[in-house]
């Protein structure tokens, strides 16, 4: 029996090596393509490789979605810019900005300052920021927004099709196909996160949010690792996205909080009065804590995912930085870097799961704190 398995694994070993090599080749090729493009479009010299701008540009949001370059032809999705300015609506394609070079209707992308990379009001020369400009409400469909929409659609499609198999299913039926893949994860979220952190009698109402948050983060983390469209966007490493997720946790925490929670916050039982009156030290700490908890969620997810993207991009850039010094060094270093990149990608898969788990677990802990039994 054991011999047989051993023999089979030997015969498939070659295939595994081939597939892995292909994967390495594809990812390195994709990285190469991405960086090569930046080199051409962003750097005027076209020779000096600027790793910093490559990494930062990749990690950040953008008004256009650069897909790839085929020779001189560059394939970019120009996303719509939607602005509310002085109670009027402006909708136009980001093509008008010509990769940030031009202005349109006195709007341009800032090169520096507090709103660097975002749309600002400029004077008629198309460059100088308008000092008397009112607030711009920028609701543009950026790269990250589109990626979020695509990911949301895929997520809904995936799980609705899973849910369909469960609707009216026989209790004794064994899960097959997609349900077989996701049921352990769903059970993991239920047993190891919700029941563990909230308690077996009160976890039910939080399940939809916890499951959605877990799979949304996990799915987007994994999608961020895919180097080509619609992946490769640093969704969960964007602070706005993690901010919204943390706000949902904050909202559900306080929406479902019971009277013991509020009592604990403003009038903690069992502590000396001088901590609460006349100077409300403890309530102040508690109220701050209520905001700091989701804040930590936001920062943790954002920092972990962004750092992961940055490390992978830095390593990829290393090839080109060294290559710009000497082609020989670049080529000789690249196999090693690519191998390390493969290792890092596996690590990122682990981190993707881990960060989704941590975000969901901590959310569940906050929910658990919001619905204490009040026995003490």
């Amino acid at each position, binding site marked *: 029996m054991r011999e047989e398995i051993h023999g089979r694994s030997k015969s498939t070993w070659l295939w595994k090596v081939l597939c892995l090599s292909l994967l390495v080749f594809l990812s390195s090729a994709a990285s190469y393509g991405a960086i090569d493009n930046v080199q051409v479009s962003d750097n005027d010299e076209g020779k000096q490789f600027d790793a910093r701008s490559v990494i930062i540009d990749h990690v950040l949001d953008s008004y256009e979605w650069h897909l790839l370059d085929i020779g001189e032809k560059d394939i970019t999705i120009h996303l719509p810019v939607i602005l509310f300015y002085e109670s009027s609506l402006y909708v136009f394609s980001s093509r008008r900005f010509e990769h940030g070079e031009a202005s349109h209707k006195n709007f341009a992308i800032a090169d520096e300052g507090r709103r660097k990379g975002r749309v600002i009001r400029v004077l008629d020369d198309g460059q100088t920021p308008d000092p008397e400009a009112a607030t711009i409400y920028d609701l543009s469909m950026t790269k990250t927004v589109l990626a979020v929409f695509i990911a*949301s659609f895929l997520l809904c499609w995936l*799980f609705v099709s899973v849910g369909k198999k469960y609707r009216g299913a026989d209790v004794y039926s064994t899960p097959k196909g997609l349900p077989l893949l996701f049921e352990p994860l769903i059970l993991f979220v239920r047993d190891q996160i919700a029941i563990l952190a909230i308690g077996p009698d009160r976890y039910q109402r939080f399940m939809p949010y916890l499951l*959605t948050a877990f799979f949304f983060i996990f799915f987007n983390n994994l999608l961020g690792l895919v180097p080509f469209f619609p992946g490769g966007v640093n969704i969960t490493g964007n602070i706005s996205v993690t901010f919204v997720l943390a706000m949902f946790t904050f909202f559900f925490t306080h929406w479902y909080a019971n009277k013991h929670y509020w009592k604990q916050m403003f009038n903690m039982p069992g502590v000396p009065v001088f901590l609460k009156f006349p100077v409300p030290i403890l309530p102040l700490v508690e109220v701050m804590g209520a905001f700091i908890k989701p804040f930590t969620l936001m920062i943790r997810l954002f920092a972990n995912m962004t750092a992961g993207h940055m490390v992978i991009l830095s390593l990829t850039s290393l090839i080109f930085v060294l290559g710009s010094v000497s082609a020989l060094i670049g080529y000789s270093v690249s196999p090693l870097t690519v191998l390390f990149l493969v290792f890092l990608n596996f690590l990122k898969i682990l981190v993707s799961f881990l960060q989704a788990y941590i975000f969901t677990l901590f959310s569940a802990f906050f929910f658990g704190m919001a619905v204490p039994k009040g026995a003490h």
Partner: protein
Amino acid sequence: MELLMPGLGLIFWMTIAFAVVLYILKKYAWQPILQILNAREKELAKSFSDAKHIEYEMSQLDVAKSKKIAEAEKSYKEIVAKAEADADLIIEEAKQKAREEAQEIGEKAEEMILQYKKEAYSQIKEQLSSLSLELAEQVLLEEFSDRGRNRQYVSKLLDKMNVN
């Protein structure tokens, strides 16, 4: 766009997207899935406890069965013993009866023998007496035929008396 600055547009769209995803998944995915999972777990727990219960009942049945068997064995032995005793008694009784009957028969036979004996005796006596009488008659007749001699005898006898 700066790394640490949340953007209004992205927050707006992300909120909408996530809320929609949450709603759709809650209604079309999590509810049916969790419902089935919970139902399955309940069913499993129920089956398990049922099995446990049945196992317990089976063991109880086993105990009852062995108890019944022991009881049956006991009563069987009792019945056999009783039957044996009864049989002994019956045999004893029969023997007794037979003995008594035999004795009775013996007694009757003895009685009858005695009676027959008596009858035989009396018949013999009768026949003997009549026979002796006949004989005596013959003798007497014989004796009386010779008169001379009788006279002699009588005179002899009278002589004897005269002596006295």
